[in-house]
């Protein structure tokens, strides 16, 4: 653990304030699930009272990294950062769990090879994913019955979004030139988000280039495998740094927040320069383009879920809402209760801790129902997948869409 983390650790007064904000504490009522308990354990690890073991590995894997504790801590303790760093220490001390090692090494390997071949991540394509899952015994290791596992596995499209597209939509006299980082979920599971984004930007005279790119690295980083994370970050920086663009656009809140952390992984000029250009699509449309949307009167009631990774970035709460309001009278925005509460998806957390994750999501389902919305909007493809699953589980067919999909609908 670095000095920086020790300082953060020292600041925690054990006031317990985080209990009121931690979605996992509110489900379980157990101290080991909340920041305060984990910080006490870290102090015990630090002083040599404890060594990393299975129980600690499980405790530290049980956190959504939603940052709610950090945002509300009266002492400014960045608990999510500490937990992330603890996972790194855990990996150093004990290596990655087999399940994750398999996934990340495939990520790395295939990325590297496919990079040359000019195609990406075939490992995540239908046959590849299944093969990987089977070969690595991952499915057997998850504490779920087979039906649940299958229903949670993302439905991978047969041809990825990026494969289907030319790398550039050249415009003669564009207002802006942007690069688009698609993220894995848009690329492989939700290509309609990508098409919507291109449609809206094209209609608004923005030139888009889609360079070669890799997974942003968050699955590895969040699991403590910083090395893989760095590798992926470095490759991404290489691909984007020399592009002559005004902005780097993201539709995935999680990728966005990872890119914003690249300078923490590499304190070099490239990482800093790029982090300055990175912008969420909602904010780009509202603040940069100041988009006007002329829509017809449909009066579809839409509510919004704040992705944890977007709400704490600049304008991360306001711009998606502003965007939705500009869709009136096609869509009428209605704030739901607990709109900024974590949906419980948190990367692979919904696979490794299925029941807990679903319990967290049920608060959202209730709020969505209460809002009587016809459609739920959000700005992170992972949150969208989680909400879709949890709604379906309650036999509800309320669609969950990316804000950009709704904007695209209003562009005829």
């Amino acid at each position, binding site marked *: 653990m670095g000095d920086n983390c020790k*300082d953060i650790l*020292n*600041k925690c*007064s*054990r*006031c*317990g*304030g985080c*209990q*009121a904000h931690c979605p996992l504490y509110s489900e379980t*009522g*157990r*101290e*080991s699930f909340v920041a*305060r*308990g984990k910080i*006490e*354990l870290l102090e*015990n690890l630090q002083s040599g009272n*404890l060594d990393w*073991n299975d*129980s*600690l590995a499980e*405790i530290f894997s049980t956190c959504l990294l939603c940052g709610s504790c950090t945002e509300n*801590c*009266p*002492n*400014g303790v960045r608990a999510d950062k500490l937990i992330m760093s603890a996972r790194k220490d855990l990996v150093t001390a004990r290596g990655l769990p087999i399940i994750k090692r398999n996934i990340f090494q495939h990520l790395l390997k295939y990325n590297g090879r496919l990079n040359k071949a000019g195609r990406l991540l075939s490992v995540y394509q239908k046959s590849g994913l299944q093969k990987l899952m089977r070969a690595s015994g991952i499915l057997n290791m998850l504490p779920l019955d087979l039906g649940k596992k299958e229903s949670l596995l993302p439905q991978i499209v047969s041809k990825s979004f990026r494969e289907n597209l030319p790398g550039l939509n050249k415009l003669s006299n564009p207002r802006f030139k942007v690069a688009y980082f698609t993220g894995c979920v848009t690329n492989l599971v939700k290509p309609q988000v990508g098409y919507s984004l291109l449609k809206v930007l094209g209609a608004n005279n923005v030139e888009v280039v889609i360079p070669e790119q890799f997974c942003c690295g968050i699955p590895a980083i969040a699991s403590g495998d910083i090395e893989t994370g760095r590798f992926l970050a470095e490759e991404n920086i290489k691909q984007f740094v020399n592009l002559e663009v005004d902005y780097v656009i993201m539709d995935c809140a999680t990728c966005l927040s990872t890119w914003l952390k690249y300078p923490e992984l590499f304190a070099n000029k490239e990482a800093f320069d790029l982090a300055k250009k990175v912008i969420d699509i909602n904010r780009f449309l509202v603040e940069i383009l100041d988009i006007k949307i002329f829509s017809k009167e449909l009066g579809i009631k839409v509510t919004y879920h704040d992705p944890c990774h977007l709400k704490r970035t600049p304008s991360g709460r306001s711009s998606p809402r502003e965007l939705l309001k500009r869709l009136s009278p096609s869509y009428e925005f209605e704030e739901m209760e607990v709109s900024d509460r974590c949906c419980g998806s948190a990367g692979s957390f919904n696979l490794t801790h299925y029941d807990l994750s679903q319990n967290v999501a049920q608060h959202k389902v209730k709020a969505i129902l209460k809002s009587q919305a016809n459609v739920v909007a959000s700005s992170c493809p992972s949150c969208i997948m989680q909400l879709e699953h949890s709604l379906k589980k309650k036999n509800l067919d309320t669609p969950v869409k990316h804000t950009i999909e709704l904007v695209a609908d209003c562009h005829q």
Partner: protein
Amino acid sequence: MNEHIIKKLQNIVGKQYVITKAEEMICYSYDGTFQRGLPAGVVFPATTREVAEIIGLANTEKIPVFPRGSGTGLSGGSIPQNGGLVLVLNRMNKIKEISKEDLLAVVEPGVITGDLHQAVENIGLFYPPDPASLKTCTMGGNIAENAGGPRAFKYGVTSDYVLGLEVITPTGEIMRTGGRTVKNVTGYDLKRLMTGSEGTLGVVTEITVRLVPKPKDKKTALVIFDSLDSAASTVAAIVTEGVIPATLELMDKLTIQCVEKNARLGLPLDAEAILLMEVDGSTVQVNEDIGIIEDICKRNKCRKIEIASTLEDREKLWKARRAVSSAIVQLKPTKISEDATVPRSKIPEMVRRLQEISKKYNIHLPVFGHAGDGNLHPNIIADKSDPEEMERVEKAVGEIFKAALDLGGTLSGEHGIGVMKKPYLKWEMGEVGLSYLKAIKNAVDPNNILNPGKIF
């Protein structure tokens, strides 16, 4: 802990509600202080009956039991001493009843205080006790510590609202005391004895509290003073002229500087004191009160007064007060919250003594607290990893207590004695008082099962 006892506990509450793994138990070794103590087991009962069975078992087997709500205590009250069983009451978190007619609420001990506030305010009622930890702490913990809060000046503390309790005695029997009436003089007032007993005389399993109608209106004033004395004479004048603000918070110079440095709210760095006051009641009353306050502040040569009515504007004024906690720990990481309390008239003298103590021991000692009730909350800001400094801190704490007692005050206004203030109890209570306390404890808890090692 012995296998067969663990089995029995599991039989009472269910297997998943007993913790014996070392790593998970470490998470029950602390509260809001820097005290620590490891349990030998942690158990989470869901009903009164389960609590009674656990205590019965503990009494037979002579296992100490340490009740715990949310573990936000500031005197080490819930911390285990040499093993024993931590009894966490947060699964018992139902609000059982809110009666508009009888103006009362019946709750289980694990209900979060802030949740009760919301539930009663939704229907136009009001539960005044408002410890700053209200989003986290439990009603059971509030009863056990007799918690207060900023509103105590006008509305009183927890014990002023307790109508009735259901308690598991240290030998595992179920007892009810008090009831649903404001008047009740049948027998000793055991509910009062239980309130503030810090989990040493019984485990509270059901609480009936009195409610009042929710005040219709509120106004807030933030007033800046060039001298501590004029702030103090303002407080005195407000009280003598018959205005009782719902809150009357004082921030001293060091606190103001910390807040301004961190939160940049435009507070003047050279001011000696800030008073934050809130009046509530009917609109007519609120307007009249705030007028009187404004007048008094001006007469006492305040530098500046800001008054806010809307929720939004009031929140702006509160920002300074809410920023205190995080601001002062930027000085150094360890915060030791004291709550020695003095009679209102002695506030200026107490603040002066605190400043002397701060100088003498070379420690940071920002003062911000409830000026209305003399509960000043001197906070020592130190670094617990510096043993030399912590030694000075300990001496300073002793002197703070002495100063408070000298001025006719008390060791603790609201946090309780726990383990932190044990050594000083005799100063305030004397030998006779102390043996009286012990006699009561021995009589009801002959095996010293419930929260041993606390208070005395």
